[in-house]
């Protein structure tokens, strides 16, 4: 458990993970239904995510995408069906294996960037100095070196998002769940951050569930994109983008195959929200 190499530290800190089952399935949702009061949000949903795979979820607003992430992360229990992560279907087991990154960065204003990034390590009982030392090892690679002691309100939107993502990765969980990670950013920063996230995931593959409104973002970052219907959500289409997380984003998002998939996804979404 040395933190000398950043990569080593991030994966070595990984919580109690026996790894995916022999089938390589990291996340399995079987017949999952959920509702808010009398409003059904998910209807017998089936979804599998393989270890190391990034699956994008796109769907109309309010279709239950965020609920789905909370179910995967063990922050919520389904009304029917099972949600299992690495074979563990109980909420505590899922909670231990998934790191949730909410829509807004939610950096704590009373902590510096570094203390925010080190939060999971401190929660796990590491001394502050040691937790900070381990988290600081990644600031360079995340392009936020020199901002360790900055308070979140002194950082730009893109930087805040990087700190938030680092906070999620430092938790060392095999699965990360991203809820519209770049929705709050302007178009240029968003494109930069997508490229940056692609690079981060190439360097350090994780199992990722990515919820987004942005079809292009989903198609660029994911191995597979599931298009969800309006409430109650079902998967109405599954798309396989041609070049997930390609180093050249500009080329990737103008690839004719990706553009064709984008058209198809948008058509499905229009029909789904009808």
């Amino acid at each position: 458990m040395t933190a000398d190499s950043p990569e080593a530290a991030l994966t070595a800190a990984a919580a109690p993970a026996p790894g995916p089952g022999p089938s390589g399935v990291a996340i399995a949702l079987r017949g999952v239904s959920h509702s808010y009061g009398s409003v059904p949000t998910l209807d017998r949903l089936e979804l599998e995510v393989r270890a190391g795979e990034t699956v994008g979820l796109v769907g109309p607003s309010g279709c239950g995408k965020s609920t789905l992430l909370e179910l995967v992360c063990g922050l919520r229990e389904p009304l029917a069906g099972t949600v299992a992560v690495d074979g563990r279907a109980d909420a505590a087991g899922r909670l231990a294996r998934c790191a949730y990154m909410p829509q807004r960065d939610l950096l704590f204003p009373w902590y510096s960037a570094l203390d925010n990034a080190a939060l999971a390590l401190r929660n796990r009982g590491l001394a502050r100095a040691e937790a900070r030392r381990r988290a600081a090892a990644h600031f360079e690679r995340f392009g936020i070196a020199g901002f360790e002691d900055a308070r979140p309100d002194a950082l730009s939107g893109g930087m805040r998002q990087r700190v938030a993502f680092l906070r999620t990765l430092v938790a060392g969980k095999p699965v990360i769940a991203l809820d519209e990670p770049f929705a709050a950013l302007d178009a240029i920063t968003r494109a930069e951050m997508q490229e940056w996230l692609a690079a981060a995931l190439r360097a350090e593959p994780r199992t990722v569930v990515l919820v987004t409104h942005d079809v292009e973002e989903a198609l660029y970052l994911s191995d597979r994109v599931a298009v969800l219907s309006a409430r109650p959500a079902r998967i109405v289409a599954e798309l396989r983008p041609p070049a997930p997380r390609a180093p050249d984003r500009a080329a990737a998002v103008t690839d004719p195959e990706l553009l064709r998939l984008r058209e198809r996804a948008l058509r499905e979404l229009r029909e789904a929200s009808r």
Partner: protein
Amino acid sequence: MRRALAPALLSAALVAAWQLAASSGALASVLGLERFLVPSPAEIGSALWRDRGLLGENAWVTLRAVVLGFACAFATGVGAAVAMHLSGLVRRSAYPLMIASQTVPIIVVAPILVLWFGFGLLPKVVVVALVCFFPIAVATLNGLRSVDPEAIKLMRSLDASRAQIFTRLEAKAALPQLFTGTKIAIVYAPVGAVFGEWVGAGAGLGHQILVDNAQLAVPRLFAAVLVLSAMALALFGLVALVERRVVTWR
């Protein structure tokens, strides 16, 4: 420094106008009063200086009641807020009672406290504590309950225990509100102490104000009010100072 200029100028202008109106006798004749009932700032100032010993002694008596009562209210107010936050059962059962208790006027309670606890320090401490408890408890509870539920989910996902969610998120997020309640409480605290003293006391600024009133020692009465005001302001400033040191992210 520049920010202080405008209020300082306004105060100076008001005092000067009062001085002119009072010393010329205009203020008294407009009010239809004897001149000695309407002291000028200069007369109040000289009463303040002449009777500084007496005023100081009485201010000390009042200040003790204020500080002790406030300290009790702070401890119990924050404690009650935390208990109500952590336990739904405590909150559901105690919160309505706490609100209802505020509808009972202190004016009614104070004489009873004197009846029970006598003319000493204790009834004043209790009145101050009663006055201060409510704003501190309500504001703190509000702060604790206004934490973003998404932030709590985030902390759970980052392996935080219930205690860590409290200390690293909820308690910190509630601090600005806690200080808002505390500032309201500290300003009312001297008023509460004076009230306790009016009902029955042998010393304190409230007691002295009553005596001066009866003896028509009007300049000293105003001087006592001035001291009381200065006390409230100083205490408020102290709390604001602590707030600035603690809540560094605002």
